[in-house]
Structures are given as structure tokens and as C-alpha cells.
């Protein structure tokens, strides 16, 4: 029952539950992209994109699939930006999206297992699989000549998959690889064990405002480790500034493209009224933008158009598109031209709708990050 002049886009993130603290920014970023498209006035002869939010809860597949069901069959969304956590993403994909032929682009589900999911061409993600990031992280450590580390990861599919990928690629000794549960009250036991195992650095594959932070804090308080190596989930300005003493000299990776895209994103979000530097905001913006662009490319408001054209608009050849340039992109598409969406995270899809993943290797200096290089 969607009006011809309106196209609904689902935004499904865990607004309640364990990652409730990062999802509002992600949703805002995605909606920012939609607003940008609407404001340009270039989209499919005046069709307005309307975001529809739903709660994935991050952990409850039943609630998430019910919500997805509602968005698809009742609200009539054409495509879904989401879900966030790998577990519910898989559930929504196989139970709702695939059966109904609705494409979904997740900004943050990074579990390697999703690469092999039966998706019938409906699943894309703007965040790269952790299989790749594990390799990148290992490479950086090798370059620095670090051969002995301890690893702690958040105890879910993301953390575990990430830690496995890292272990596979790391060319030294992992003294202890120990999970931590998010949302727990105290992490001194974990730090005690890791400190006892020792290592030149602690690799932290967790979430920036969850157990990952708790681990770094506990380690700093006891002086267990001096250097931390952080995965994407740890990236967050608040963490860096709050624990600037602890993190001085630490480094990490985050899916990120070279310069331009991210800078452009930072610029357009400056006055947006939310903290755009938090995790997965860039990927969320890109996911939403891609949905719009794919529809434009297909020339119609339909799920098929999105599914069929995403790879095309995301990859070369064509004019590179940065955040803030969606209007321009629509114009090019309207004229039948070709674009290569770069976006805030340097989108590049490889087979099966996987983001190729370009990573930024950063150092923490004085409570802020400094780019070392892009990989």
C-alpha cells in the first residue's frame, strides 16, 4: 500500500538491549542519508524516502523477525537497512527477507559466517567480514615486530569469529585468548588471568562502550598491559578521550576508506546533532545511501531494483561519490550515467555483496586518533 510518491526504507537496529548505546547514532546516520536524498529533490521524480525504524534488540531473534515481518508485510518497506548484530541479522535474513524478497544491507553484521548464508542475492553488508580484519590486524602486529600477545574478545559470534580469524593469521604466540561477556559488573578476573599469561600487548576485540572498555579500564587500573590493539568495535571518540592515559600509544583498525570519504562524512555530520564518530555510523550512512542509489539506478521503487543494482552503483566504473554528494549521484544516474559509490566507509563490494573492506590503521595520541595508513 505504499504510495507512488513515497518509498519506505526499514531501519532495524538494537535500540533496546546490549548495544542500545550505539544504535541511535547509527540510525541517525542512515536517516541523514535519506534526508539528503529527499532534500536533493532528484530522486525518482519526487518520490520521498521515509525511514521506518524497528527494534532488532540485537539478541532476540523472535522479536527481531516479528519486527521485520511487520515492516515488510505491514509497513511495506522496499529494502531494509539492518540488522546490526550478526545473529539477528542471520535470523531476519533467512526467515523474513529471503522469503519476501526484500534486500537487506547490514551496516555492522561482521560475522564471517554470514558470507556463506543462503541469501538468494538479498544480503549485502557495508562492513567487511571479520575474516579480513583479523588478517589486517595480524599484519600490523607483524610489521611492528610484536610476537607475543594476549587476546580478549567479546563473547559473541562477532568477537569469537574475529578472534579466530586473528589467531589464524597471527604469526606469533597468543599467550591466552579469553572471552569477556558484555554488560557484566566486573572484569578483574579476566584481566588477572590475561596478565598472568602475559604478552607485549593486549588485543581487544570488543565493543567500545561494553566489556571491551571495561577490560581496558581494568587492565589500566592494575597496570596489566600498556599497549592495546583494538578491533573495529572498539573505535569511539568517547573511549579514546576518557581513557586517553591508558590508550596512549595503542593502536587499532577500523573499516574506513582513505581520507576523503570519511572527512566528507565528518563534515556533513558536524551540525547534525549526534555523535557521528561512534561505531558503524559511516557504514549505516552508506547502507542507506546505497539503497536509494540502487533504486534510482533501477528507475523504480522496488525491492528488485535494489537487489539488482546495488553491486553496480557501489563499484567501479563510474564517478566516485562521497557523502554529501548524493544529489550529484542521483543526477548522474538520472542521466543514465554510472557512479562508483565510495561513501563514508569506502564502499567496495566483492562477490556476494561483501564489502571488500579497507581498514584504517590508527594510533591513539592524546586522546584522539592519528591515521597511520590505510590497508
Amino acid at each position, binding site marked *: 500500500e505504499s504510495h507512488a510518491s513515497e518509498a519506505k526504507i526499514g531501519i532495524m537496529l538494537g535500540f533496546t*538491549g546490549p548495544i542500545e548505546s550505539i544504535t541511535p547514532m547509527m540510525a541517525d546516520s542512515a536517516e541523514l542519508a535519506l534526508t539528503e536524498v529527499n532534500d536533493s529533490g532528484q530522486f525518482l521524480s519526487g518520490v520521498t524516502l521515509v525511514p521506518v525504524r524497528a527494534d532488532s534488540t540485537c539478541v532476540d531473534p523472535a522479536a527481531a523477525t516479528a519486527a521485520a515481518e511487520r515492516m515488510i508485510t505491514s509497513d511495506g518497506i522496499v529494502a531494509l537497512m539492518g540488522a546490526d548484530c550478526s545473529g539477528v541479522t542471520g535470523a531476519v535474513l533467512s526467515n523474513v527477507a529471503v522469503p519476501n524478497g526484500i534486500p537487506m544491507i547490514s551496516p555492522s553484521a561482521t560475522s564471517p559466517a554470514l558470507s556463506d548464508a543462503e541469501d538468494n542475492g538479498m544480503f549485502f553488508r557495508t562492513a567487511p567480514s571479520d575474516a579480513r580484519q583479523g588478517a589486517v590486524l595480524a599484519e600490523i602486529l607483524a610489521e611492528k615486530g610484536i610476537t607475543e600477545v594476549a587476546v580478549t574478545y567479546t563473547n559473541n559470534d562477532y568477537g569469537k569469529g574475529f578472534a579466530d580469524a586473528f589467531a589464524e593469521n597471527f604469526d606469533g604466540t597468543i599467550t591466552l585468548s579469553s572471552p569477556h561477556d558484555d554488560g*557484566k559488573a566486573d572484569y*578483574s*578476573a579476566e584481566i588477572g*588471568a590475561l596478565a*598472568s599469561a602475559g604478552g607485549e600487548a593486549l588485543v581487544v576485540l570488543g565493543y567500545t562502550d561494553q566489556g571491551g572498555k*571495561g577490560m581496558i579500564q581494568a587492565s589500566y587500573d592494575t*597496570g596489566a598491559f600498556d599497549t592495546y590493539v583494538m578491533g573495529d568495535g572498539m573505535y569511539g571518540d568517547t573511549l579514546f578521550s576518557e581513557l586517553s592515559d591508558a590508550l596512549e600509544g595503542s593502536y587499532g583498525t577500523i573499516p574506513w576508506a582513505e581520507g576523503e570519504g570519511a572527512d566528507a562524512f565528518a563534515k556533513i555530520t558536524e551540525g547534525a546533532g549526534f555523535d557521528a564518530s561512534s561505531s558503524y555510523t559511516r557504514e549505516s550512512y552508506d547502507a542507506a545511501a546505497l539503497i536509494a542509489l540502487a533504486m534510482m539506478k533501477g528507475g523504480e521503487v522496488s525491492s528488485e531494483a535494489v537487489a539488482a543494482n546495488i553491486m553496480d552503483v557501489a563499484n567501479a566504473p563510474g564517478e566516485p561519490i562521497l557523502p554529501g554528494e548524493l544529489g550529484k549521484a542521483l543526477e548522474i544516474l538520472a542521466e543514465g550515467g554510472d557512479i562508483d559509490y565510495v561513501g563514508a566507509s569506502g564502499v567496495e563490494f566483492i562477490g556476494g555483496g561483501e564489502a571488500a573492506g579497507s581498514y584504517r590503521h590508527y594510533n591513539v595520541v592524546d586522546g584522539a586518533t592519528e591515521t597511520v595508513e590505510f590497508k
Partner: protein
Amino acid sequence: MDFVNAIVALTNFVLIPAMTYGSQLALGALGVTMIYGILRFSNFAHGDTMAFGTMVTILFTWLFQSWGISLGPLPTALLAIPFGIAGTALMVLATDRVVYRFYRAQKAKPIIFVMVSIGVMFVYNGVTRIILGTDDIRFDDGERFIISAGDFKRATGLAEGLGLKTTQAITVITAIIVVVALFWFLNRTRTGKSMRAYSDNEDLALLSGINPERVVMVTWLIVAGLITIAGVLYGLDKSYKPFTYFQLLLPIFAAAIVGGLGNPLGAIAGGFVIAFSEVGLTYAWKKVLGYAMPEALEPSGLVQLLATEYKFAVSFMILVVVLLFRPTGLFKGKSV
């Protein structure tokens, strides 16, 4: 020297963290135990009330900080605690008036109160999130360390560091003060004794001229104090996040029950039992043994009894075992 290093490592990684965490749990468990002892039910809303109290304190802390008030090396939040307690007291008294009082008038069975407290838990849960959101918030300021691990190493020349945070010291000291004060209050003052009397036999308390509603009010006030202090100390030491506070409910209950529900001494003991079993039983002794043992015997493995992922399970195992052998908990649950 090695022996000293072993001791320092053990202190740094087990004793101090467990003491701190234990004190935080103990303060939380004291609140649970007071409600259980006097109002006769287990309050499932405890974790979320703790979050509420901390939230109010944080708001006041921000206010003071914006006025430029500070306590120097100590966290400003300490100054805000009384206001936090006042806010929480208002909230719990209002809840009591609107919700619990009705059931008291109906002479409802305690189990009904338990279920009502589940409802209150959901409501508080929503309220704190609506007011202050769900973010992780750090609100400690002032000096973070009394001595940091690095400074300790430099000062002593030992291989092992020993870190002691301001908040850890504050937590332990406050816990001791609060516990002593509570004991004195319950056992020596008239009001305290009247609370014990009410807890023992409501009708007879009435027949002795004790005003039951006053006892209930004082109980809630004390609980508001305990809960806010516990929440703020925890938040200062770690950080504030509603979800974590909700999760704290489990170890707090475990602590209160291991110790013997209804008994303040038990709550303290329980807090430490839970904290020490979480930290101690999963500790990898490699480092300590490495120092303490002669070279030849140094362990190659981690010498870890159980992986840390089972630490939470361990505390519950201990709980079950204690209950099997001492069904009333470590201390008989009867003092309050």
C-alpha cells in the same frame, strides 16, 4: 625479592579488585537484605533502583561541575551523593505510596510484593533510560590513582606493579563506615530496635506502640541511601550504564543469599565470598607461582583452575554448595 613480587602481583590482581568489587556487592546486598528482612520480600527492582540513584547523582554532579564546584583530588560525585540519595528517597517513597502501600493495606502476601517489584523493575528500567539514555557514562573526576602500577614499579624497583585507585579506597572505606553505622543504628538506637521488632513480628510491634508506616518509611530511606551509595561507588569505579546495573542484580542476590538473607553481616560476607570466588577461582597462578617457585619448578601452563568465562557460573556453584551445607547461609538470616 621474587617472593615480594609474588605477593604484589597477587595483591594487585586479586586482593584489591576483589575487595573493591566485594564492597560494592556488599553494599548492594545490604539493601536487598534490609528490604527482605523488614518488608519480607526480595526486591527485583534493586538493580534498576541503583541505576536510578546513580543517575540522579550524575545529574547533580554535572550541575556542580558546571558551577565549577569540585572536591580537588576526590570525585565531585561524592558531593552529589546526598542529593542523589534525596532524589532516590523521593522516588522510592513515591513508589511505596503509589504501589506498595496498597498491598500493605490489603495484607498481601510477600510473594505478591515480589511480583509487584518485577513490575516496578520494568518501569524504573524504562524511566532511567528515558531520562538519561542508555549510554555508558563516566563521571569520575579528580585524581584517578592514589598510586598507579607504573609509579609503584618506579618507586620500589620491583618487577610487579601495584595500582590503587582513589575510587577503590573510597569504596572500601565507605563500605566499612556504612556497615558500622548501620549496625550501630539497628542494634543500639530505638528506631533501629523498633525496625528489628517490626521485622520479627508485625502485629506485636503494633501492640507495642510502634508505628509501622514509620518503620517502612525509615527502611526505604535507608535502602535509598544504601542503594545510591552502592550505585555511585560502583559507577565511579567502573562506569554507569543502566544495562550493567540491571545485570548486577544477580551477583547482588547471590551475595545476599550466600551470606544469609536478612542478616547485614551476612550481606557483607556474601559480597566478599562472591567477589573473591569470581576473581580468585579463575585466577591463573602462573605469574605468582613463577615468582614463588624455584626456577626448575616454574609452571609452563597457566595453572588456572577454571577459565574466566565460567566465573559467573562459579559464584552460583558456590552459592548452591553453601546452601546445601548451610541452608540458612553463612550467617543465620535473622538479625533484621
